[in-house]
């Protein structure tokens, strides 16, 4: 199936050919026939060992771990740039790697020609590139510079053009290696927005990043590597927590845990007649933490009923981390009249268009009686990151346009 990735017991060993490992004869070097080659003082470095990984189409997986743990090697194996020493790597569909953006741009020729060449290297037909040229130029936001030789570009323009070509290649699998760290803030925001849209379309993504907040908001799952071995693999939150605690040290982590469990009780209360089991943000049928501004999404509340109730309201409140209230709505205001809540189930609040300005949002979720008696009131049950190409101020970013007669514009 297109967009799936499968690593089975993958091992990757790098060998350096030092002076001592020269082939004995030219002939031996040419024909791979020199068994003594292996026994010489070859320096070996095991970059990955016993790695199993399975990624379903449309999934986003983050690879985390300290420097030198084999993250980039794993990415390059996925991209087919390196071959595993042992084990097998299967990747279906077109793979594009966002590694070293703009690599292979020739400084002497124009951006436009470089786009054509880079696009063809990424597997596009010349015609497809010509069709997408305008889109690429727009995204890179370099205007008439596109016809100038690349050597006069600023480093920002260089990277933007590289990113624009790579995402225009319309991959089934996208590999992202810390590229979001290189640009300025505005560029990073636009990239993130673009990536969020691609996720919505079902592009499989593998991300290497040290930005753990990005990892938890971006990825469904995470793989934690240390010295080439898999330490933990699973839901992004859990794996990131594990990595954080390893990084901070076990002792601090315990203190951290105590602190969070204290605040937990401040953030959640209720008599427990109805319990909220989980809250998810669904973007295009997939639970995500990230949604492009103006895009559709759904908040799904799963609940368990411990005691039958006939008076109940499900509510959702959006606010920002600084406490700014954004919006609140519940089933009562929505005109739904409760009759009976007897069995476990789920309730969804569907947003056709989430017109929020980009940024981080927190969502409180509650089920309570109409008089306000809380069955389960859960503050900050969900963290959502809204992305947008433009950094709109405030919290509301409605679609809009400007009309004017009097003033003169450029």
């Amino acid at each position, binding site marked *: 199936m297109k967009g799936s990735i499968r690593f089975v017991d993958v091992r990757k060993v790098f060998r350096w050919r030092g002076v001592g490992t020269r082939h004995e004869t030219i002939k031996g*070097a040419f024909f791979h026939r020199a068994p003594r080659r292996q026994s010489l003082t070859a320096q070996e470095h095991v970059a990955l060992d016993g790695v199993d990984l399975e990624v379903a189409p449309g999934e986003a997986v983050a690879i985390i771990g300290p420097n030198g743990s084999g993250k980039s090697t794993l990415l390059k194996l996925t991209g087919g740039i390196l071959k595993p020493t042992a084990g097998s790597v299967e990747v279906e569909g077109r*793979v594009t790697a966002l590694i*070293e953006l703009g690599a*292979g741009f020739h400084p*002497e*020729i124009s951006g436009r020609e470089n786009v054509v*060449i880079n696009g*063809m290297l990424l597997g596009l037909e010349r015609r497809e590139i010509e069709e997408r040229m305008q889109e690429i130029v727009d995204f890179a936001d370099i205007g008439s510079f596109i016809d100038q030789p690349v050597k006069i570009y600023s480093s920002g323009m260089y990277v933007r053009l590289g990113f624009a070509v790579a995402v225009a290649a319309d991959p089934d699998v996208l590999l992202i290696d810390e590229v979001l760290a290189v640009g300025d803030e505005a560029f990073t925001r636009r990239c993130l927005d673009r990536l969020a849209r691609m996720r919505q379309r079902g592009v499989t993504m593998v991300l290497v990043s040290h930005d753990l907040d990005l990892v938890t908001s971006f990825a469904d799952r995470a793989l934690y590597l240390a010295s080439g071995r898999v330490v933990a693999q699973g839901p992004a939150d859990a794996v990131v927590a594990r990595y954080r605690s390893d990084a901070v040290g076990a002792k601090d982590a315990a203190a951290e845990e105590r602190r969070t469990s204290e605040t937990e009780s401040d953030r959640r209360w209720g008599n427990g007649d109805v319990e909220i089991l989980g809250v998810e943000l669904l973007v295009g049928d997939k639970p995500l933490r990230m949604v492009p501004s103006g895009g559709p999404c759904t908040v799904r509340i799963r609940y368990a009923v411990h005691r039958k109730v006939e008076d109940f309201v499900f509510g959702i409140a959006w606010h920002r981390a600084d406490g700014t209230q954004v919006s609140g709505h519940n089933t009562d205001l929505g005109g739904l009249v409760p009759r009976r809540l007897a069995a476990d189930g789920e309730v969804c609040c569907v947003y056709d268009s989430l017109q929020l300005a980009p940024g981080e949002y927190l969502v409180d979720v509650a089920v309570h009686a109409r008089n306000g008696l809380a069955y389960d009131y859960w503050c900050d049950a969900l963290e959502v990151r809204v992305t947008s190409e433009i950094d709109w101020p405030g919290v509301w970013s409605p679609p809009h346009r400007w009309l004017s007669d009097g003033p003169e514009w450029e």
Partner: protein
Amino acid sequence: MTVLRLLWRNRALIEVLVRRELDARYRASALGFFWSLLNPLLLLAVYAVVFTYIFSPRFPGADPYPLFLFSGLLPWLFFSGAVLDGSATLVDNGPLLAKVMCPPEIFPAVTVLSHLVHHLLALPVLLLAMVASAVLKLHPTPWTFPLVMVALIPWILVTGGAVFAVSALSVHYRDTRDLIGHLLNLLFFSSPIIYSLEGLQVPIVLHRILALNPLASLVVVYRDVVFAGTVSSPQTWLTAFAVGVIAWWLGARIFASFRETLVEAV
């Protein structure tokens, strides 16, 4: 053969890369593509002056000597230029190889093809010089000139094979580049480019050794059609093609044996 198929499948990419190479070379130069014509022309002018007035070597069948030299030198420049560039092509394109999954074979191929284009652009200059000297009765008209396209085939094969080998070797052994310069020098003087084997006044042993040089047949075949106006013996043609095919096969073989580890070493 598998290499050829692979290159054919990537022909569109190779085409744009060759164009890029040519574009980039003449970008920001006032005369642009004319340099491809001008370079051999100026070279020929210098030779004509030096080897006519300063010292004029005498070899049977090598008259006028500047043209004789020029017709031997042109394919050599194609070969040596491509091999020298070939030693850097994979290293230079390293960032690309490390980023995109593209067959590394295309880079040596691009090197060979862009040098071939330069060579083809120099051919009109050679033809013009031949016609001019024929008009001046210095030299019979070489009617066999169009056969140069056939004589080029073994040159392309040899150059391709050498560039494949050199490009892969220089990734793993950076000393290849230094070595190549000297090897080319040796090969140049042992090939019948500045002399002809027939007119050589050397001990018979050395003559035999020089005749063993695999490039000798290629030089002879090429120069016979463009300069002497004759077609070499079938035996010489056969040797030239055999050398070409073997060099190609060997080069592709060497490249293949290093292929897997190229990206890591680059």
